[in-house]
């Protein structure tokens, strides 16, 4: 949902984005079902989905803007605000929580001087929670960029942030 009153304008998708969306569009029954994949494609190129990008995708798929926003805000991996170079999603579902995801969160936040949802001052990292990553047997877990990290502890976090 849009929080500011400023008028956003629709911008165009790039030829490459259009090509990539067109390549998968026929895998789906209707355009509404393409929504998530189309957003993924565009986000891959732009790192996050701005209001105007969202409008461009909605126009391209000819689906309602509100509907696309509904999909975008439901999906944990679609970013509707600018994010850092790497997004760290720490899992806060039940197993990770039992095995210390709160410490993981605290440590991450303390190291980067941010709160969950924020980006470090150098623009390197954004910290966000996520639901179960399917790695309960090796909890606590996190998604760092698109890499799954398991058996986390504060040392492991320091190691990740060193890179």
């Amino acid at each position, binding site marked *: 949902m849009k929080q500011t009153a400023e008028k956003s304008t629709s911008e165009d998708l790039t030829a490459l984005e259009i090509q990539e969306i067109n390549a998968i569009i026929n895998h789906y029954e209707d355009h509404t079902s393409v929504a998530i994949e189309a957003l993924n494609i565009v986000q891959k190129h732009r790192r996050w989905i701005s209001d105007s990008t969202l409008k461009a995708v909605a126009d391209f798929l000819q689906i309602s803007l509100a509907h696309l*926003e509904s999909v975008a*805000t*439901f999906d944990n991996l679609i970013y509707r605000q600018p994010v850092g170079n790497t997004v760290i999603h720490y899992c806060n579902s039940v197993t990770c929580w039992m095995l210390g995801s709160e410490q993981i969160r605290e440590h991450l936040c303390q190291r980067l001087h941010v709160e969950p949802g924020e980006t470090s001052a150098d623009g390197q990292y954004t910290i966000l929670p996520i639901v179960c990553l399917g790695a309960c047997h090796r909890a606590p877990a996190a998604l760092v960029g698109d890499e799954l990290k398991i058996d986390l502890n504060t040392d492991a976090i320091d190691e990740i942030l060193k890179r």
Partner: protein
Amino acid sequence: MARIQIDGQFYSVPEGNNVLSTCLSLGLDLPYFCWHPAMGSAGACRQCAIIQYKDEEDTRGRLVMACMTPVTDNLRISLNAEQARQFRRDNIELLMTNHPHDCPVCEEGGECHLQDMTHMTGHNLRRYRGRKRTHNNQNLGPFINHEMNRCIACYRCTRFYNEYAGCDDLQVFGIHNNVYFGRFEDGALESEFSGNLVEVCPTGVFTDKTFSAHFTRKWDLQTAPSICVHCSLGCNISPGERYGELRRIVNRYNGDVNGYFLCDRGRFGYDFVNSSKRIQHPRIKQRNACIQTAKEHFHQLLTRAKRTIGIGSPRATLEANFALRSLVGETNFFSGIEDTEYQLLQTVSQIIRDGGIHSPSMREVEQADALLILGEDVTHSAPRLALSLRQAARNVSIELAASALHVPSWQNAAVREIEKQALTPVFIASIGRTRLDDIALDTYHGSPDYLANFGFAIAHYLDSSAPEANALDADENKLAHTIAAALKQAKRPLIVSGTSCSSLAVIQAAYNIAKALPSPNRQLTFSLPECNSLGLALMAGNDLQQAFTAIEQGQADTVVILENDLYRRAEKQKVDAFLETAEQLVVIDSLKNPTTEKADLLLPAASFAESEGTLVNNEGRAQRYFPVYPAPDSICASWQWLLGTMENSSWQHHDDLTTACAQAFPDLTAITQVAPGADYRVKGSKIPRQPHRYSGRTALHANIDVSEPGQPTDSETPFAYSMEGNMAQVPPALLPVVWSPGWDSNQAINKFQEETGGHLREGDAGIRLFEVSGTLAWFNGIPKPYISEPGVWEVMALPHIFGSEELSLQSPAIAQRLATVCALMNPLDAEQAGIDNGDCVIISDLSGASLLTTVIQIDTNLSSAGLLCITAGHPKFQALKMGMQVTLRKFNSDSEVGS
């Protein structure tokens, strides 16, 4: 039937429904939020938990959601088991953790489903002390307030808005504990049915903004059963009053007509009653007069008259029209409708009476399994009907779900999924795009002549004895065959047409198609212009042109006009001439308009909220409305003005008029049974208009007089302007509001229905005047297609939900949502005329006199050449009438400054 056991009691109930609905139908109290009888089950709120036992031996049972559990034989459940009660209590406590507990400032308070359920579950103590998440609210336009913090995430709003009403600008955003129901950005809700959110939402998230502007608690509102006067469907409404001001409209359930829902015109159009345009006093030659003087003057005018003619109105009641007809005499009574429309209405009434085809209620419309709409944009001409048609579009998938997959219709999500595979065949033939195009399998566009010809072709393909139409081109021909085949196969095919095109041929073609259908369950319905168009048509009378002629030729000198602004009916010059030639002009109406301005004697009429009367809707159903509150002393109901001047009449009361009217017209015999008469009593007392908690009666008028005035008396209806009286077992036609102990919200309706979502006990209100009988010969007036002359356009004045109806237009909220002022044109025409989208043009009549300037919008859906589509009745387009021929020229701002 299934034999089931609930808390040790045995019941015999229909199999296959869900347990929640069944329990409610049995009169049991079980809390719920997300389930809605019209929308089925979602299983989203977890409020309807009960215990289900495997068998007689099972003592523990397991927790299930009643709304998701089907009724099967030998089902054994408990509503009262402590475990289930505990779960429901805890569930509501959790739903309430983020709720702001702001009932005292919430418009929902006092009629809130959430309050009722909280109370019912016994969650009386707030334990949560944590932070609450909060949301920003949006400006959703003039109709609806938004207060998202009150949301309990039941998803009823989006399910209604997206799935039931088919609009997609209201959505749910976010995930888990942080979901938001709103629009992408601020802006008016686009659906024509947005007002239903007020009643669908179980909390105070969506409330009525027009009501907020002069808010009163439900228990302080005075109410009476009423009928919407803003289109021909006659939806049942409960208007509420306080301090002599009409405060709001809510839905009044009628299982046959509007069910649970109204359109936004009907819900928000009421404010005209409070408008500054109301005529507050009688006026003689433009000067205020008192009632007595006005009555005497009226009498004198009539005595002085050589011959008086009366002009009736399709927006006045049967009784008022009948009183006028009786006053002036049958031959001097004119229907007040211009001749084309008059002809259309005569044909429609002939078809409904003698056509031998069922005229369906909206409930029946929802059962159709194939449908063709011929010539109507139903959302704009008969809004609530469009909502029913949208439900009909789901029938084939519901049937498929049940037969092939054994999924019951109330399993909402599952059935919606099946919809992607199969939908009811819906076809729309219309002038341009319509708001139902998204449910159409195919559409056909053309001018009314083309539509009629297309219809005649379908009829002929269905039954070769029907007259043959003019040849169609290959594509059209194929489509006509497809439609004929789909309709032929259907078990319950439905044809929808109406008067929007002002084309007799369209209506006749619709009849031919319906007549050609083999199914015994075929149905045909028409959308008509006004709330009593059919009633007036059944009273015959002559058309307006004949009244003009009578005055013009000096056959009459005095005119009495009943609730009718003639300037909306005929061209200005004609009306001017008519009104000026008449030596004495009496006008009875409620709002000032160009016709009332001309009156020698102007008599202020009570609005629908302050008077009583019978209307006949498009289905042929007679329904009565009752005064919600008394009109101010200086205002009378139209029928009272008329009756008051009839010498030696034995008629004293409204009921006398109803009875006499029923006797005068065989078609209307049944109108006396529409509702019990004024002498009806419930256990010896009148029915109170005020709830038993009505407050402040002694103090209401203390600013004027500290002594409490007596309650006004009502000798015309079974109702009292009072809280005293008897509310138990009131017949449906007389039910002002629904309330039941523990059920302050509108959900109390469950207690008044035979089964949830079904008919009201003792039968839904209203009497159908016609049942299937007779048959008519094939109509064979196949029109020659209209060939446009280059440079000449034909005006198509088409209905719009906000803008075309006279009274609602005077309500500020509706005025804010007025249709955009523009004229639509087909792309080819525009290209030839050198007009671009958004160009300003000057429209002139054929004599060259310029009428108005407007913006042109190019519409690719307009396929016929030479049509210029505008909003009918729109104040900006007063000078243009349906079917008028006009020329256009581009407005050049440089050369025409000041023109």
